[in-house]
């Protein structure tokens, strides 16, 4: 029984909750990848995957089929991830109040000693990037992941995150600038 997403949705709507299983099994891995890139850690990503499906199930009647089911699920996941990052940042702020401009400052992470070994070097780049990703605002991070890793067009990103395409472009651009500045010392470019 290989239902299309649309067929599975129809069945769920008639009360067949087992049809939802088809949807969950089909989309979980992709959603996890998206959620992990957005939140940067496994517990939050797992939470996001589950919450996305629960919300989708509750709101299945609101799915109008204008976009693909996958895009709709991405929309729920992206917005929930954004909430999670926001909550996490707020928690961190309580522990460690940020100075006023920290959010807007585009800064380079301190340069590390040059490592000749390529593996070690790429490990260092990853670490710098990971930290820089965590410093992005929730919106910048979501928009960047959707553009860079998921290949969504700026217009689609706007629709997913509920912002204008131009705001989506600005968010991606700011994220790119911040990541680039952070990487400059390691990449050896000025």
């Amino acid at each position, binding site marked *: 029984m290989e239902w299309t997403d649309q067929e599975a949705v129809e069945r769920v709507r008639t009360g067949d909750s087992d049809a939802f299983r088809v949807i969950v099994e089909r989309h979980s891995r992709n959603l996890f990848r998206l959620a992990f890139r957005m939140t940067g850690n496994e517990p939050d990503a797992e939470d996001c995957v589950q919450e996305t499906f629960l919300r989708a199930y509750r709101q299945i009647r609101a799915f109008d089929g204008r976009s693909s089911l996958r895009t709709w699920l991405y929309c729920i996941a992206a917005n929930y991830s954004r909430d999670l990052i926001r909550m996490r940042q707020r928690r961190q702020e309580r522990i460690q109040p940020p100075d006023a401009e920290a959010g807007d400052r585009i800064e380079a992470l301190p340069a590390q000693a040059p490592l000749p070994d390529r593996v070690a070097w790429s490990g260092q780049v990853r670490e710098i990037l990971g930290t820089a990703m965590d410093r992005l605002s929730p919106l910048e991070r979501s928009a960047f992941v959707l553009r860079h890793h998921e290949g969504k*067009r700026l217009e689609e990103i706007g629709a997913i995150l509920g912002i204008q395409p131009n705001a989506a472009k600005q968010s991606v651009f700011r994220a790119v600038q911040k990541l680039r500045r952070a990487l400059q010392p390691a990449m050896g470019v000025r």
Partner: protein
Amino acid sequence: MSHLSEEQLMLHYYREGDESRHLDSCPACRNEFAALQAALDAADDLPVPERGAGYGGEVWRRIAPRIAARPRTRVIQFPRWAAIAAVAAMLLLAFYAGRFSRGPQPAPATAIPAEVRERILRVTVGDHLERSQRVLAEVVNSEDPVEPERVEGLLSENRLYRQAARREGNVPVTILLEELERVLLEVAHAVPDDRGRVRRLIESEGILFKVRVAGSTLRDKEKIWKVKSWL
């Protein structure tokens, strides 16, 4: 001819713009683009933990109980007004039983078997916690104010369930509902300027987490009960 801006280079990288002609003829911008490309390509290598082919099934197993216990199906078996009425009846019976037995400790509502009373509490409180969790999450995450009637409704149910839980001697649920009631009161009485303070309170008490854990524990217990009752 002016050089390409960083934004134009980015749009070119993501193929949302085409600057090939300029890049073909301008070494300076070509260099700039190469640097941007190197930085952005590095982001491709950020590792993501692998999830195997069975992952979808695993996620399903985790969420299936919550989907099976959806309000839509529960409404038919166990309408909410009936649940509230049942808890109210439990309290009333307990009150009269205590009054007529004149013992130092009021006797429990003997007219309803203990197991049924426990189940009524479990289902109603589980449902109540789920709704409270949603409202608190909205307070924390959304900029829009939560409708006051929803909070008021939760508050009056909370009082009822708290009394019933105490009467049943269910200490953990009683404590949780007391805590929840304090937070709900703050939410109900907060003026718009208080939003930040209320959010901090919700987060510092960790109440959302406690409510979520307790809710899922009650749901699991109910699931076990259902399975046992089929055997």
